[in-house]
Every structure is written in C-alpha cells, then in structure tokens.
C-alpha cells in the first residue's frame, strides 16, 4: 500500500486515519457514556434508568442526539454574537485535539510526541477559554458567575493534578506516553501501586478538572442554574456536553496510561510466551468476556416486547460475537497484531473502569461549597502533591544510592505522605465553624 | 539552508505592532497586552538564533523571558484592579495621580 501514496505525505496517512476514527467514534462513545451514567445512577438509586428507547435504553443516546439537533438554537439578544458562537467551538476543538497524543494501544496512537503528556496538559488547559468566554458571551449575571467560578476551579486543580503526574514522571523518566507504559512494563509494577498518593491526588484533581461529581459547582443546579451553560441550547449546548465528556475520557486515558499501565494486561510481566504455544489464560479473557456479552444479549432478544427491539438485540449480539472472534483470532496472529488489538481492549476496559469510578463518586457525595472546594485544592491537595513529589525524588535517590528494590524505596514515601495528609486533614474540619462564627 | 531573514522580518513586524499598541492605545489593559506582544517578538528572535547556533542557550533565555512576562502581568493586573476598584476607570489618561 506504501507505493500507492506519494512518499512525501506517507508519514501523515496513518495518523490522519486514526484521527478520523477517533473524531467519528468519540460522539458515539460520549453518548454511550451518558447512557452508562444514567444506568449506573439508576441502579444505585433503586430504579431502572432509561428503558423506553430501544432494549434497555440502548438507543437512548441516538434519541438524545437527534433531539439536541432539532432543538431551537436561542441566542440571547444582547449576547456578544461572535464570542457566543466561538466559545463552544474552542472547548470542543481543545477536547478533540488532546486525543492526538493519547496512546490507545501500542500501535493505535496518532502521534508519539516525545512531550506527549505535557502536550495533553497544555491543550486541556486551553479548554478554560471555552468556558470563560461562553459565560461572558451569554451576558447574564448567573452564567458569568458560573464561568468565573469554574475557571478558578480549573486553574487551581490543574496545578494539583499536574503535581500528581510529576511524581509518576520521575519514575517513568520520559514524557512520551509509549515510554511511560514501557517503563511500567520494565519495572513490572503499575505506577498506581508504587505511587498511591500520586494516583489519589490525580483522581481528585481530574474530577475537579472536568467539573464533575462533588466539584460540579459551576453548574450547581440549586444556586447558579447550570452556570455558564445556562444560555446555550440545542446543538451549541451539545458541543459543550461533548467537550465535557471528551475531557472525561482524556483524563481517564491519562490516568490509565500513567497509573494503570496503559495497554498492559494485568500480570503482563510473565508475557514472554511464544505465539501459538503457551498462551496465558489471561490473554483469552477479552475474547471470553465479549462472547459472554453476546450470549447474554442473544438470550435477552426473544424476551423484548417490541419487534424492532428484538432486531436491535440480535444486532448487538452479532456485533459482540464479531468482536469476540476478532479478539480470539488475534490470539493466533503474530504477537505485534495480537498486542495491538488486545492492548486497545485492555486500555478501553481500564478507561471505562476509571469512568465508572467517576460515576460512583458522583452519586455518593454531596457537592462542595465553593470556598471549601478552593480550600481543599490549595490547602490540602497541592501541599500533599509537593510532599509526594519530594518523597518520590528521595525514593529514587535511595534506589540509586543503596540499590533498594523499586517497591521497597517507595514505602517510606507513601508513609511520609500519609502522615502529612493526616496532619493537613486534621486542621481542615474545625475551620468550618470558625469561619461562619466569624461571619455571624 | 533557509535564510534567517524571514523570521527576523516577522519578529520586527510583531515588535512594531506592539510598540504602536503601547503608544497609541488609551486602555491600560491593551497596553499590557501589547507589551506581551513585544516580549513575544523578542522570543522569536532568540529562538531563531538559538536554532542557528545549534545551542539551547537561546531557548533557556526565552523561558526566563516568559517567566518574567508572567510576573509582570500578575503585578500589572493587580495594580489595574486596585485602580479600577477605586476610580472606576481603566483609561491611561485618567491615571494621572500617584496616590488616590
């Protein structure tokens, strides 16, 4: 195929292909994450969630998308027309741009920049403009307050999340996503386990960065009525919505690559198997999983009340069956192909697990007040992250000087950070009284 | 071997626009932004010559300029906010007294 395309643009073909795939798949993925969120929320709250559109609400995202497209697109009359049109565009492009450095599988990566991680951080930090300009352009008091609050929140939690990442970079030694995963393979341990606090800080930081769960103050329904998105409707609003979910997937992707060993199969270290012979049973797991889903949906098909729901269920079953065959087939293919496909599967599995954790946290915790949110960010997370980074640095020095094992050297770090965390947490609680008593 | 002149022309253009911005505009914020523009023009020059000599000193110096721009912007905007808070105006002409 190489000779068909003139050599000068040869290096650009594959990345462009991947980019097209990602941009096409993303809205669908975001839609289905919304469905997953509503389903998970429902079963946590002892109810069923969307069931009406398609079997078990599987067609709900498509219905939402169509509704959003048809909805009338209102622009407040005194709004700043140029900014109003430009703001959601900014946040969506930034969200999509950040995918370029994300390494889905060993092969499936648009551009392996050697400053991959920094690039994603930089681009996602530009997302703030979409929100701030959006809040400003809709020219209403509520959305401006919401925009300012969310910008302040993003800026402060970006530092916390960034510091959380640095502690991992010290271990990995490189910025490029592929090398980080490689480092985790060589050291045989996922960084999530070796630097637990870094993982915790990044988890909290990423939740705050995507305006979700306990930190979703900007669009806190009760006071500011959907914050900066108040004046948007119809397609424009769905752009913001898409940007938010795309950000969520990016953040999950970064966390998976850095803390959960990207596309590495759990227990990847014993991976030196010869193709066709000692395939570890773990490799077959993906195929078996998708096969199970296919059988389940087949069993469900006849029970669907409406005829077309039966067809949809059968369709879903066929789709899962196909994926299962691909995964099974890959087992016998040369290792490069097998790694590519299985890598992508494991990466997506971990991303979805991380997003499930997002949803889980979202439905158990009440919302933080704005000043508590800021206090948590600046007074608790950032100092903790700093201590963590120093701790990891010390651990690395220990490992080089006294050749301790990678794990052994990190234990003092975790203990030290734990101690500091307790210290900081202790003086957080009683502050609430003092502050309101002063206000009295 | 690409000639260096295109980059120099570009940074000169940005530099002149920045200077014009500072000198002619009345709004203080726009003046601050024009200063950022001038600093950016200087950065381009540094990068070009660092690339030409093949060393990284130029880039390191550019980093220092950016940090300095950050510090300058922070304090500058602080002053503007304080001034706006008291005098409700943002125009350079009306900032004629030192102590308000």
């Amino acid at each position: 195929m190489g000779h068909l395309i003139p050599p000068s643009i040869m290096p650009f073909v594959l990345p462009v292909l991947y980019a097209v795939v990602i941009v096409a798949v993303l809205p669908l993925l975001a839609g289905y994450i919304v469905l997953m969120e509503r389903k998970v929320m429902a079963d946590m709250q002892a109810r069923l969630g969307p069931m009406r559109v398609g079997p078990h609400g599987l067609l709900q995202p498509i219905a939402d998308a169509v509704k959003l497209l048809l909805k009338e697109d209102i622009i407040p009359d005194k709004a700043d027309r140029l900014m109003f049109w430009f703001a959601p565009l900014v946040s969506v492009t930034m969200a999509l741009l950040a995918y370029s450095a994300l390494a889905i599988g060993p092969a499936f990566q648009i551009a392996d920049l050697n400053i991959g991680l920094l690039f994603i951080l930089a681009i996602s930090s530009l997302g703030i403009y979409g929100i701030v300009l959006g809040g400003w352009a809709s020219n209403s008091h509520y959305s401006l307050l919401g925009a300012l609050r969310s910008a302040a929140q993003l800026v402060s939690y970006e530092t916390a999340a960034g510091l959380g990442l640095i502690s991992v970079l010290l271990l990995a030694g490189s910025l490029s996503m592929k090398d980080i995963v490689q480092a985790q393979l060589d050291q045989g341990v996922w960084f999530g386990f070796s630097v637990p606090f870094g993982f915790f800080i990044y988890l909290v930081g990423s939740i705050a960065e995507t305006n979700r769960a306990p930190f979703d103050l900007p669009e806190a329904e009760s006071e500011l009525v959907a914050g900066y998105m108040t004046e948007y409707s119809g397609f424009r609003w769905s752009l913001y919505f898409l940007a938010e979910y795309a950000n969520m997937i990016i953040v999950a992707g970064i966390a998976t690559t850095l803390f959960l060993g990207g596309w590495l199969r759990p227990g990847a270290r014993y991976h030196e198997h010869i193709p066709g012979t000692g395939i570890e049973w773990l490799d077959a797991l993906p195929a078996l999983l998708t096969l199970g889903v296919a059988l389940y949906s087949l069993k469900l098909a006849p029970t669907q009340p409406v005829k077309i729901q039966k067809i949809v269920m059968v369709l879903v079953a066929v789709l899962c069956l196909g994926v299962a065959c691909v995964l099974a087939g890959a087992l016998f293919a040369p290792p490069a192909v097998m790694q590519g496909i299985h890598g992508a599967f494991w990466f997506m599995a971990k991303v979805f697990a991380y997003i499930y954790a997002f949803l889980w946290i979202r439905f158990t915790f009440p919302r933080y007040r704005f000043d508590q949110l800021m206090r948590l960010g600046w007074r608790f997370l950032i100092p903790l992250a700093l201590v963590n980074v120093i701790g990891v640095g010390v651990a690395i020095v220990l490992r080089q000087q006294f050749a301790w094992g990678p794990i052994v050297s990190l234990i003092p770090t975790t203990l030290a950070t734990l101690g500091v965390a307790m210290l900081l947490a202790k003086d957080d609680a009683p502050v609430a009284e003092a502050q309101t008593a002063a206000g009295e | 071997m690409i000639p260096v002149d295109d980059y120099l022309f570009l940074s000169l253009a940005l530099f002149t626009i920045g200077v014009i911005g500072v000198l002619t505009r009345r709004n203080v914020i726009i003046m601050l932004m024009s200063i950022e523009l001038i600093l950016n023009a200087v950065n381009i020059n540094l990068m070009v010559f660092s690339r030409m000599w093949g060393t990284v000193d130029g880039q390191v110096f550019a980093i220092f300029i950016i940090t300095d721009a950050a510090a300058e912007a922070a304090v500058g905007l602080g002053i503007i906010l304080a001034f706006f808070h008291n005098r409700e105006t943002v125009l350079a002409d009306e900032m004629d007294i030192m102590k308000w």
Partner: protein
Amino acid sequence: MQTLNQALFIFFAVLAVASAILMVTRRNIVHGAVFLITTLLSTAGIFLLLQAEFLFIVQVILYVGGIMVLFVFVIMLVNLDVSMRQVQFNRQWFVAGALALVLAGQFLFAIWVGRGALRLPAMASEISPKNTEAVADALFSHYMLPFEIASILLLVAMIGAVVMAKRRAG
C-alpha cells in the same frame, strides 16, 4: 518536506501579524484578548518549526494557559462597556505612530543590509539529544543561578499580587 515547512511558516507568520494588528485596533477588549491568544498560538507554532518543542509547550501552558487566563479574568471584572464608548486612541496617536514607523525603518535597514548572510541549518530529521532533555540539562547546569533568580522574581511577584488583593479586599 521543504515546501511544507515553508508553507507552514507563511501560514503562521500571516496569522500572527494579522491577529496582532486586529488586537491593537479592536474596540472590544475581549476580542482583543482572543486575537492576542491567536498570535501567541501562532508564535508557538513557529517555535515548533524551529524544532523547539519544549518552548512550544512552555509557551502554550504558561503564556496562553496562564497569563492570558489572568487577562481574561481581569477583563471580565473590569467595567467593559463604558470604556468601549470612549475614544480608543489617545490624542498623540499620530506622532506616536510616526515615531514607531521610523524605529521600524531603522531595524528594517539593518536586516536588509545583512540579508542572506546568516543561514539556518537544514531541518534535521531527528534531533540528536531530545530537545526537552537538552534544555533541562542546560537549565540545571550552566544556568543554575539565573534559574534561582527567576524563581525569586516569581515569588516577589506573587507576594506583590497577594498584597494588592488583600489591601483591596480588606
């Protein structure tokens, strides 16, 4: 590769100059800020062309992601529509403009004389020491002292900003 490189440079250059001009002339500051952001992003692009990846990232994160957010914050907090109505250019704009052009002319002449003398080495396919590592080494070896001074500078700036805010809020 050469033509693509040239095309990119022209694109970034034109974008930078155009948005710079727009920034200076716009009546609405928010539009001005957005145009400044486009200028900064296009200069970041030029850094990439000059194979300075780390600087590209620093420019994007620090300049656009940090300082410009500060600017946009202040613009929103400042009472915008009154200033939009006033005259945008001060009285002596004509004299200032002429002076600036004279200054530009001198620089132009200086560059014109040395035209073609300096050459950029060809676009190396793979930079030997990765750019980030090289900058890092330099930063922490030769430039240790300036690095510390820069950090003190930032500290002073932070304290200044805090004092400014506290006095106002007090």
